């Protein structure tokens, strides 16, 4: 797929939530007003080029963060969430690793640093010793196993120093002795060059990820860095408690790190000046599929999906007042999030790219993939092809996945081929349930979710197919 991953355009018309007045004092001891904070949605690509000089000219140096807890609190106020797919609050991840390392008190369920931890299965429960802190590991995840996503390699090629800033900052926050960058082959050279420019990044190791879908999964990343084997592994404890070499490990997406580096400079209020209260800041999206100009865009949080799609057409449709069109002709559906995401029917793409709005379609912003299916394509056919791809991308370690995903893809293919077996939809649902939650990683779960959302989004076509017809193809 060819994508113009060059300069990413700025904010889309009508999406800016407000303008940031003047310079915002970063938390820490940097010189206020050295660089004015970015206004609008063009935040991540302000540097003129990918060199260190270009980076410093655009953003100035990363401020020293003197008080770790205060910065974590700033991150909490910013509402920054992971941009790698899961969307986990960044402050929580950092606090969890810090607690596991003995650098701070474990979290209690309300998020304050007192009491014993409960939380979502990441209980440390271990008493905090005032003695030696455990050594930790930080890994920047730029593997981008999702074929529809190009944002991470774009970011690494054009703004690697923001990513490195965020990585070094996280390393300092969790007291990491091992700092790693895990990147795809496409961005390897650019990152290597960027690292070599920096005297403060001599200890950062660089590893290339294989081109596999599951290579970007967190435990696979940890496994690759530790053992050069890029497959997920079983874990009793969360990575934040025991990961590489049994040490608390922080795996963070490269875009998350870049955003974090901006929050460190310009603060939580500035971050929230774009987007909505539930989806603050900006995010990178990769638009692909049946659009004239597939590309990577930086958009404000909760931008409507149809506006994102519209930005990839050369000329906006006439007769509008600057707001995005509601029903886009020529779009059958949009796959949001990635191959583990969900389909949004063409009639509903005016919804915002937010967790709340997308949930009803079994989707989430995820890794920012927006894949457009034109109305000249059969959705079931597309879904079946993707299901086969996903089945082939199994790491082949876990029985339910190795056996269940090909079976799921086969049933979907038969549906797409207009089999008249009325039991097929129920069989899809059954197989999707059988594989869910029964693997070492979420590959089967994501595939099941994807397939079920296809059945829902294209349900009228399912009925047609079972009658031997297709809504798209006459024959």
């Amino acid at each position, binding site marked *: 797929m060819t994508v113009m991953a060059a300069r990413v355009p700025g904010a889309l018309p009508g999406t800016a939530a407000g303008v940031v007045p003047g310079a915002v004092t970063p938390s820490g001891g940097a010189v206020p007003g050295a660089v004015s904070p970015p206004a609008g949605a063009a935040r991540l690509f302000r540097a003129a080029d990918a060199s260190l000089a270009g980076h410093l000219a655009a953003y100035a140096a990363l401020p020293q963060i003197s008080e770790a807890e205060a910065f974590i609190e700033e991150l909490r106020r910013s509402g920054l969430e992971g941009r790698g797919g899961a969307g986990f609050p960044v402050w929580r991840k950092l606090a969890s690793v810090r607690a596991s390392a003995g650098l701070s008190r474990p979290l209690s369920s309300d998020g304050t640093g007192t009491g014993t931890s409960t939380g979502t299965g990441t209980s440390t429960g271990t008493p905090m010793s005032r003695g030696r802190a455990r050594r930790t590991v930080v890994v920047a995840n730029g593997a981008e196993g999702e074929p529809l996503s190009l944002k991470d390699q774009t970011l690494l090629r054009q703004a690697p120093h923001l990513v490195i800033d965020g990585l070094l900052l996280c390393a300092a926050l969790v007291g990491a002795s091992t700092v790693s960058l895990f990147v795809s082959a496409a961005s390897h050279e650019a990152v290597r060059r960027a690292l070599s420019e920096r005297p403060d990044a001599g200890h950062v190791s660089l590893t290339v990820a294989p081109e596999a879908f599951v290579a970007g999964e967190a435990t696979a990343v940890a496994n690759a860095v530790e053992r050069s084997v890029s497959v997920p592994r079983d874990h009793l404890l969360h990575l934040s408690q025991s990961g590489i070499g049994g040490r608390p490990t922080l795996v963070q997406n490269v875009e998350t790190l870049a955003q974090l580096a901006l929050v460190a400079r310009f603060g939580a209020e500035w971050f929230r000046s774009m987007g909505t209260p539930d989806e603050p800041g900006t995010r990178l999206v990769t638009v692909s599929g049946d659009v004239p100009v597939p590309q990577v865009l930086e958009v404000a949080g909760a931008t409507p999906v149809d506006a994102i799609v519209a930005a990839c057409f050369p000329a906006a449709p006439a007769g509008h007042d600057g707001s995005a069109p509601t029903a886009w002709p020529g779009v059958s559906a949009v796959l949001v999030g990635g191959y583990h995401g969900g389909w949004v029917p063409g009639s509903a793409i005016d919804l915002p790219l937010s967790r709340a709005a997308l949930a009803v379609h079994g989707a989430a912003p995820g890794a920012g993939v927006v894949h457009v299916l034109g109305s000249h394509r059969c959705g079931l056919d597309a879904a079946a092809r993707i299901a086969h791809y996903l089945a082939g991308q199994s790491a082949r370690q876990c*029985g339910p996945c190795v056996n269940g995903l090909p079976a799921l893809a086969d049933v979907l293919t038969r549906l797409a081929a207009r089999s008249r077996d009325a039991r097929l939809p129920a069989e899809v649902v059954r197989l999707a349930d*059988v594989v869910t939650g029964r693997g070492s990683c979420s590959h089967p*779960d994501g595939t099941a979710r994807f397939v079920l959302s296809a059945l829902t989004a294209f349900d009228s076509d399912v009925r047609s197919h079972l009658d031997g017809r297709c809504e798209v193809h006459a024959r």
Partner: protein
Amino acid sequence: MTEHPAVGAARLHIDWTRCDGRGLCTELLAGRLARDEWGYPLARQAAPGDRSDVALSPGELDAARDAVSLCPRQALKLTSAP
């Protein structure tokens, strides 16, 4: 029938990268584990999040310990809550 385990119950952790669906655990914990069509253990009436860390009632602990010890692939571990 399957007892409903208490909150905070012990759990049987299945390491799927090791499991080969040999079925010993499904015999010892027949009320808790069924077998799917390829022979792998399938926790009965469990939410997807509980299928790899299967909640156990106190009466099942002995059988679970046997399963852990007898699994030919050493794919099982007993953990305490959550």
